[in-house]
C-alpha cells in the first residue's frame, strides 16, 4: 500500500512539472506569436507607406495634372465610367496615360505590390476616382480599373484627407485572390504640383500572405523545441525527485514498517532502524530521519522504563499480597477458635482499606480460666501502619500473658514502643481479660473507642476515662477498670473505621448509628451480629470508597462449665 503511495508521489511530481511546463509553453508561445505578428504588422505598415511615398514622389506631376484635369472635366460632363460610357476611352490613347501606366507598372514590379494605382480624392462626393491602375499581372484582369472608375471613400478616409492632405492612412483588408483569401496592406500618398498642391494620390497595396505562411511553421518549430526542452526538464525533475525525495522517503517508510512490526512482535528493543539508514542528504529529509531516529531512541527508552516500572509495580503488588497474607495469618481467623471450649463464643472481622492495614484484633487463652481480648488501631494506614501493628500486636499479647494485668501490660508496651519511635506513630488499644469462671472483665483503654455492652436486654456504650494512645509519651501510667458480665451478656469492640465510615455526602456513620445497628442486629450468634453491623455499614457507605480499616470483635459470655 505504501509502495503505491510512493509511486503516486512520483507521478504527482512528474505531472505537476508537465503542467507547469505546458502553461509556460502556452505563455511563451502566445507571447512569441503576439510579438512576432505585431512586428510583422508594423513592418508591413512601414513598407506599404514607404511604397506609397516613393511611388508618389517619382510620378510625373505634369502627366498626372493632365490626367486629373481631363478626368475631372469628363466626369463632370458624363458621370463616372461604365462599360457603356466610353467618354474616357480617349484618355487611354494619350501619351500622358501611357507614360503614367508604364511608370506605375515599373513601380509595382519593383515593390512587388499587389496594386499600385493613381486616384483622385473626391471628398465632396465621398469617392475616389481612378486615373490609372497598374496592370495587375498575376491578378485576374477584371480587377483592373480604368480612368473614370470610382470606389467609395470612407468617412475616416475623408476626414483624414481633409485634415492631412498628403496621405491616406494605412488599413488592411481581405482580398479574394483566385481560390484563396489574402490580407492586403493599403496606404496612399499625395502627388503634388510645383506649388505643393495635391493633384492625386498613389495607392499602394501589398500582400502579406508570403510571410504569414512562414510564421506558423516557425512558431510550430519553436513550440516543438520548447516542448522537448520542457519534457526533458520534467524528466530531470522527476529523476532528481526520485533520488533526493522519493527514495529516502521510501527508505524511511520501510524502516518505519520494520520498526512497527518489531514493536508488534515485541522482539528487540535495541535495533536502530532509522539510524541504520544513514541518510546524509543535509536537508529536511535528513532532519526527518534524525527526528525519527531520536523518536525511536526515546520510544525504546520509554518502553524500557514502562517495562521496568511494570516489573516494579508487579513486584510490589506481589510483595503486598504476600504481606497481606502474612498479616492476616497473624490474626486468629478460624471460628470457633477453641472448638473444645464451647463456652468461648467469639467472632471477629477485619477489612483493611488498603492491602495491609494498621488495625488488628486478637484474642488468646492466658490460662485455662482467662481469655485475653484486644482491639487496636495504629495511626496512619498502609505499610508503615502494618509494620508498627505487627510489633504492637506481639508486644501486647506477650505483656498481657506475663503481667495478667491490662494496665501493666499497656505501661510496658508503651515504654517499649516509645523507645524507638522517631516517626511518632502511635496506636490506640483496648484490651481486656475475661475471667471465664466469674464473668469479671478487667480492661484498660489507651485512646481507643468506647466498647458496647449488652446487658439486661439492652445495648449501651461503656464510657470510662481513657488513657493516652500508646507510644505517644513515655511517662504515662494506665489505669484499669472492671465490669461484671452475666451469662449471655455481650461485649462488642471495634475500630474508629466504623463510626468514621463516610458515605458519598461525607456523612459519618457515627456512634448513634452503630448503637442502633447493634440493637437491630440478629443476635443468634456472634457471627450474625457482626454480619448485621457490617451490612449496615456497607449499605450506609454505598459507592463511597472505604477510607479507613474496619475492625470489630464480638464476645458473648457463657459461664465456664465444670
Amino acid at each position, binding site marked *: 500500500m505504501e509502495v503505491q503511495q510512493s509511486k503516486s508521489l512520483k507521478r504527482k511530481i512528474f505531472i505537476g512539472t508537465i503542467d507547469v511546463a505546458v502553461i509556460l509553453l502556452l505563455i511563451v508561445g502566445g507571447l512569441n506569436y503576439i510579438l512576432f505578428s505585431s512586428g510583422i504588422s508594423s513592418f508591413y505598415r512601414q513598407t506599404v507607406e514607404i511604397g506609397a511615398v516613393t511611388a508618389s514622389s517619382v510620378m510625373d506631376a505634369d502627366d498626372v495634372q493632365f490626367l486629373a484635369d481631363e478626368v475631372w472635366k469628363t466626369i463632370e460632363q458624363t458621370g463616372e465610367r461604365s462599360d457603356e460610357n466610353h467618354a474616357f476611352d480617349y484618355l487611354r490613347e494619350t501619351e500622358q496615360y501611357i507614360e503614367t501606366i508604364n511608370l506605375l507598372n515599373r513601380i509595382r514590379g519593383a515593390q512587388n505590390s499587389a496594386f499600385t494605382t493613381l486616384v483622385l480624392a473626391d471628398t465632396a462626393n465621398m469617392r475616389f476616382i481612378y486615373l490609372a491602375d497598374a496592370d495587375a499581372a498575376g491578378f485576374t484582369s477584371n480587377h483592373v480599373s480604368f480612368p473614370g472608375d470610382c470606389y467609395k471613400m470612407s468617412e475616416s478616409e475623408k476626414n483624414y484627407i481633409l485634415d492631412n492632405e498628403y496621405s491616406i492612412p494605412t488599413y488592411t483588408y481581405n482580398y479574394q485572390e483566385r481560390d484563396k483569401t489574402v490580407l492586403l496592406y493599403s496606404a496612399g500618398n499625395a502627388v503634388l504640383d510645383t506649388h505643393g498642391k495635391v493633384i492625386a494620390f498613389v495607392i499602394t497595396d501589398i500582400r502579406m500572405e508570403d510571410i504569414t505562411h512562414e510564421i506558423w511553421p516557425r512558431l510550430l518549430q519553436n513550440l516543438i523545441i520548447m516542448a522537448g526542452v520542457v519534457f526533458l526538464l520534467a524528466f530531470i525533475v522527476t529523476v532528481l525527485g526520485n533520488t533526493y525525495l522519493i527514495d529516502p522517503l521510501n527508505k524511511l517508510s520501510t524502516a518505519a514498517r520494520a520498526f512497527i512490526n518489531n514493536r508488534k512482535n515485541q522482539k528487540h528493543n535495541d535495533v536502530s532502524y532509522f539510524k541504520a539508514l544513514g541518510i546524509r542528504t543535509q536537508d529536511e529529509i535528513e532532519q526527518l530521519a534524525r527526528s525519527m531516529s531520536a523518536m525511536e531512541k526515546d520510544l525504546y527508552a520509554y518502553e524500557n522504563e514502562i517495562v521496568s516500572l511494570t516489573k516494579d509495580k508487579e513486584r510490589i503488588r506481589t510483595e503486598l499480597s504476600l504481606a497481606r497474607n502474612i498479616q492476616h495469618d497473624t490474626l486468629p481467623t478460624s471460628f470457633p477458635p477453641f472448638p473444645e471450649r464451647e463456652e468461648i463464643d467469639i467472632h471477629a472481622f477485619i477489612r483493611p482499606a488498603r492491602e495491609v492495614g494498621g488495625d488488628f484484633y486478637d484474642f488468646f487463652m492466658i490460662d485455662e480460666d482467662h481469655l485475653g481480648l484486644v482491639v487496636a488501631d495504629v495511626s496512619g494506614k498502609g505499610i508503615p501502619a502494618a509494620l508498627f501493628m505487627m510489633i504492637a500486636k506481639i508486644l501486647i499479647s506477650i505483656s498481657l500473658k506475663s503481667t495478667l494485668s491490662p494496665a501493666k501490660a499497656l505501661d510496658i508496651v508503651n515504654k517499649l514502643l516509645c523507645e524507638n519511635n522517631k516517626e*511518632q506513630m*502511635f496506636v490506640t488499644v483496648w484490651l481486656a481479660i475475661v475471667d471465664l469462671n466469674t464473668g469479671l472483665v478487667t480492661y484498660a483503654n489507651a485512646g481507643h473507642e*468506647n466498647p458496647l455492652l449488652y446487658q439486661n436486654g439492652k445495648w449501651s456504650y461503656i464510657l470510662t476515662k481513657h488513657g493516652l494512645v500508646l507510644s*505517644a509519651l513515655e511517662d504515662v501510667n494506665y489505669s484499669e477498670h472492671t465490669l461484671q458480665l452475666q451469662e449471655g451478656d455481650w461485649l462488642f469492640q471495634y475500630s474508629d473505621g466504623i463510626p468514621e465510615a463516610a458515605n458519598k455526602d461525607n456523612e459519618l456513620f457515627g456512634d448513634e448509628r452503630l448503637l442502633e445497628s447493634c440493637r437491630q442486629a440478629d443476635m443468634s450468634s456472634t457471627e450474625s451480629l457482626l454480619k448485621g453491623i457490617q451490612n449496615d455499614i456497607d449499605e450506609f457507605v454505598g459507592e463511597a470508597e472505604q477510607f479507613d480499616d474496619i475492625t470489630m470483635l464480638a464476645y458473648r459470655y457463657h459461664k465456664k462449665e465444670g
Partner: protein
Amino acid sequence: MEITQKREDNNFEIAISGRLDTVSSPQLQSEMEAVTAEAESVVLDLKDLEYISSAGLRVILLVKKAMDQKGTLVLKNVSETVMAILDVTGFSTILTIENDKEQVEPHESTAD
C-alpha cells in the same frame, strides 16, 4: 485547612480552621516546626477546627513534646467534636486546654 499566626515576642498564637487530617497535617507540621524553634509559649486556637484525625493528633503531640522542654502549650476554644476526639484518644489527659472564660481541667468521662 487554614493557619493564622499571631506573634508577640516569642509568644505565638496559632489559629487552625477547617479539617486537620492526613492531607493537611504536613503543612501544619512544617509551620509548627518553625514556630517551636523560637517559641516560649504557644497557644493553639481551635475555635474553627472542625475535625482532627490521628495525623493531626500526631502534629499536636510533636508540638507538645517540643514545648515541654522550653515553654508552654495551651489549646483554647476547643469545640465539642474535637474535644470528644481528644477525650477518646486520651490526649485531653496530657494537654492543657482552656476556654476563654474558664480553665478546664483534663476532661473526665463518666461511666454509666
